[in-house]
């Protein structure tokens, strides 16, 4: 019973920081605690897998949401070079 309550308390804490953890936005200590909990708790591990899959699918959608034109980037690099060119 106590074990279960402790486990639930751990799950609650991990749930609060799970997305930040997956984004690499938590400190090293927290990251270690979450990683250990995810190894031990099947339900939290499943939760993490779900959000990882969502994040991955969003990233897959990236080129369609925000296509990057390599030529545009190259034009901007040349613009920057011209900008920094010594004035004669």
């Amino acid at each position: 019973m106590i074990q279960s309550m402790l486990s639930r308390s751990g799950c609650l804490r991990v749930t609060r920081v799970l997305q930040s953890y997956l984004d690499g936005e938590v400190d090293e200590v927290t990251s270690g605690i979450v990683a250990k909990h995810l190894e031990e708790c099947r339900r939290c591990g499943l939760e993490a897998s779900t959000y990882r899959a969502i994040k991955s699918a969003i990233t897959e959608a990236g080129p369609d949401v925000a296509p990057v034109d390599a030529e545009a980037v190259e034009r901007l690099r040349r613009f920057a070079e011209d900008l920094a060119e010594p004035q004669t």
Partner: protein
Amino acid sequence: MAKWNARVRQPGSGCMTEAARDQKQRLAFDHYVVPEIPVLYRVALSLTGQPADAEDLVQDTLIRAFGAVDRFDGAHPRAWLLTILRHTHLNRVRGRKPVLLRDGQSVELTLERVGKPEPSAEEVVVSDLFESVVAEALAALPNTHREVVTLVDINGLSYQEAADVLGVPRGTVMSRLHRARARIRTRLTAAGLAPRRRML
């Protein structure tokens, strides 16, 4: 990051010649600004939604950054540049809200897996469906939520960098992002593609 400016700052900089100042400005610009051009362009594209507008926005940002780089202390160049980008964008649109996707615009997904075992037909169908639902859910998000997802998950910005772009606190980025993903997850659950959220 080491304060790169400190390396080019010369003893007796108060007496630095104009040519030396120009040289320092160019070196700092090449060092801090030029490597960030792809990120600036991606973020500009997210903010404007139009490639031509994005390019113009980055050009204006580069001009401002060039003028200010000699006063930049060298700490967090991307955050510094994103802040300039945001201010430039706000000046350009004069209060118009940034748009990430046109209303009703849907996102087509392609499925490419390189270097992974060939998935079964069933896995392809489920995966394709999963990504389609995510894309539809992404398109249906409120703009304020979608722009955060785009900045963090697609453009790879940190929470703080996204906050700098949007001019909101880091906590706001975090809550919008987490709520956005939770909404996407709800859609996936409704489609039978994700487990129900457990109650603690």
